[in-house]
């Protein structure tokens, strides 16, 4: 769930130029990699079921290095937040509200994120669970409706730009899947810790399959060149779809649903981020951090000046963040295994979420 929310909106934009017609295969490769990351993270979560990420790191590497690792994590989350929110806001702005200043959309977006973070992870989780089937259904509906318009021939040649680029693009796609490490920060709120890794894997798999579908159909409908030209390929795909004589351009409905998904994902990321910072600072309540941190995220999301610049940033981010998402669980796990540590009863108060 965490994974694909923003991913599929622009993923094709990044992947298709790199992998050509085989972008959807890249996504699947990325999904496999993501599953690996999720497995690592899930194992880590099982080992330290009652601890937040920062507490884990502190236990494994001692207070100061642990805090540093925690800080890198929250930096990562902040970047995800900033880029993700910019991307979603842009999608809204470009597609529908050209006359509205994007800052206003951004403000509404951040107000909602602040509200969600204030309510806590439980609320976010419950709402996600309700919206998840809706989003999946919307995508399936889109796929079904797009089928008549799609031209499977555009997927040829299967290997696209060649094996190398496809695999390399797979790593880019894995960056989206890698965002599932955010779950590490909130895993101690789960009632059923053992289900965590499975749930993570399911989320990654479902997300990546959907992303592959979206990318594949995007290519089938718009062609490689077409995709490289538009900003939000999936949106364009949706635009080409009509419900018979009833609703002509239903993309706004889809976008509204996806917007909710993006919001929930980013709210979760935001929550993970501020709770980690709160842990690093040793605060008991994360709530005082919400407003300043939201401002930070909002400011960060405004750094790219133009739409194109946003995508450049995204390109760069996608290229490098995947290594971080692999490194973080690996480093923690390695430390834990070498020192033979396991999560015992920590004093962390469980807020009894679920």
């Amino acid at each position, binding site marked *: 769930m965490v994974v694909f929310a923003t991913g599929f909106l622009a993923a094709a934009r990044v992947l298709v130029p790199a992998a050509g017609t085989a972008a959807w295969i890249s996504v699947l490769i990325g999904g496999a990699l993501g599953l690996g990351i999720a497995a690592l993270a899930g194992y880590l979560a099982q080992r330290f079921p009652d601890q937040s990420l920062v507490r884990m790191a502190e236990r494994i590497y001692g207070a100061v290095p642990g805090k540093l690792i925690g800080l890198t994590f929250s930096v990562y989350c902040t970047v995800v937040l900033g880029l993700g929110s910019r991307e979603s806001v842009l999608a809204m702005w470009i597609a529908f*509200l050209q006359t509205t200043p994007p800052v206003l959309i951004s403000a509404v*977006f951040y107000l909602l994120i602040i509200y969600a973070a204030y309510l806590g992870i439980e609320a976010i*989780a*419950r709402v996600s669970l309700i919206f998840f089937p809706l989003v999946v259904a919307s995508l399936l509906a889109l796929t079904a409706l797009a089928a008549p318009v799609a031209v499977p021939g555009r997927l040829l040649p299967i290997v696209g730009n060649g094996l190398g680029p496809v695999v390399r693009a797979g790593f880019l796609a894995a960056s989206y899947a890698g965002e599932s490490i955010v779950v590490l920060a909130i895993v101690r709120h789960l009632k059923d810790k053992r289900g*965590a890794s*499975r749930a993570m894997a399911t989320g990654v798999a479902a997300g990546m399959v959907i992303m592959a579908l979206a990318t594949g159909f995007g290519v089938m409908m718009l062609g490689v060149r077409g995709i490289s030209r538009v900003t939000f390929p999936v949106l364009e795909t949706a635009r080409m779809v009509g419900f018979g004589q009833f609703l002509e351009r239903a993309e706004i409905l889809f976008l509204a649903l996806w917007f909710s998904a993006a919001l929930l994902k980013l709210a979760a990321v935001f929550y993970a981020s501020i709770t980690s910072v709160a842990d690093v600072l040793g605060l008991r309540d994360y709530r005082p951090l919400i407003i300043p941190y939201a401002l930070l995220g909002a400011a960060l999301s405004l750094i790219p000046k133009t739409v194109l610049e946003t995508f450049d940033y995204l390109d760069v981010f996608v290229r490098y963040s995947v290594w971080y998402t692999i490194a973080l669980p690996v480093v923690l796990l390695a430390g834990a295994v070498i020192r033979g540590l396991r999560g015992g009863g920590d004093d962390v108060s469980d807020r009894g979420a679920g």
Partner: protein
Amino acid sequence: MKLLRRLARGGMRRPRMMLGRPLLPLEEVADEIGTTAPGDADSKPPGNAGAAPPGSPIPDTLDGVERRLRDLLGDGSPDVIMRRLVIWTEPEIEGVLFYIEGLASRDVVNLVALRSVMLAERVPALDASALGRDNIASVLMTHVVPSGQIAVLPCIDKVVEHVLTGEAALFIEGARECVVFEAKGWEHRGIEEPHTEKVVRGPREGFSELLRANTALVRRRLRTPDLRMDSMKVGRRSKTDLVIAYVEGLTNPRLVAAVRERVDHIDTDILPDSGFVEEFIEDYPYSPFPQMQYTERPDRFCAGLSEGLVGLIVDGSPMALLAPGNLASFFQSPEDYYERFPYGGPLRALRYVAGVIALTFPALYVAISLFHQEMLPTRLALAIAGSHMPVPFPVLVEAILMEVALELIREASVRLPDPVGQTMGFVGALLLGDAAVSAGLVSPIMVIVVAVTGLASFTIPHYPTGLAVRLLRFPLLLLSAWLGLFGLMAGVMAIALHLGALTSFGVPYLEPLMKPRPSLRDVVWRSPVFTFNKRPEYAEPLDQVRQKKFIRTWAPGVAEMARKESGEGGGGDGEDGEDRGKSGDGAR
């Protein structure tokens, strides 16, 4: 004097063995009448009465008694009856019968008190010389006054309290104690069809204002001895009786304790209706959404108790409360279960759809017609534009005008008497809509939108939930007029997040929707009753198994399935997959 006080502090006296004959085991009855529920703050059980002095003792003379009663109740109330009589003893002893006319039944007073005490069917009069001032009341209680609920009380304040609930008291010259017996018999509304929760098929009995009648309705449907009805008194002046109902061994004791604690904390003057209790004890009083279920239907109340919920019945209110509530329960009508399941499921699903329509439809219309005209097929867009042409207002104003008018009609027809109210609804809706269109104030399409929304909001079975939805429609309208569908979605997300954070007695408001399989079975859909082998989990009942997994084993094929199942896993109630990953999925 010291002795007297100690006696008084000792609380109610138990009947003694007198006249050498074994007595009936009246202790329990006496207990019931002399004390209220454990935990009730202002009446301690007699066992530990030493802690708090129970009030002033009964004066020695009857004149003193009458004077004291006049002090307590005032002089002028004509319904306060103090009737002097002579008790059938040898030598004669005087007494005062004290009751409130209208609360106490005339028949009971005549038959129980006057006839038996004055005429005393026992032919030889009671030998008063053997009776002292300590035991005469007990003897009267055990031997003379023929009443099921009866007690002797040593303290005049308590006596007055009991009499004000409809009992009658018999003071005896010189006695330390007073006989108080059940005589309730006031006028009240009979058991009628519930007005707010109508069903086509199903029982038509509804709760009334009388607490005892209501508890009896519940007892009749739940005959298990485990049904508990803990009584409490709330309201400093009203002293309203309140019953906390639950099933021992099924309802989670933590839930019962939480309800009791919150009710205990209520400190108010009067309690006119269960709505007051609701507001005092709910988790989030500032949320627009109701967090407790209320019902007029004893069948629904009992169904709730059998699922591990805690019920609250307040004297004087026909609306019983069930806790914890959740969003799903407000979309269920008992009829979903009384009618066969092929209709129950779609109807319930329809109600959820109606809920969404009621919340978002006008906002959606405003957003589309202001911001996203491209979504509509050209001809429809032209039709909308054409119908809006003569209207002098922006779409938002138009929508708000019509919505407000609809709310006016609704409110007016609720307050008016039934036949007038219905006419009013028709006239209001038809005439107003038609006239508004022909006057060019609103477009016909807007009338349709508002009418559909209104209809949809009335399909929500739980009235306050419908109100909440109607209330939230207005901010959504404003948001979508401001930012189009984005604004609408933002508003919906805010509401969804609020719902996600809401709890009722600690139970998340959306909990029943969280797990796909049970929620498909009996939350958004309704499966056949023979598949409800587990109780809903949100109230965390102690016993989750409601019925066997395979019941229709006489039907072809089912017996084999049952055999296979028991061969594999043993125990027919394991619903595999249901418990898995409860929150594993939950937190993502």
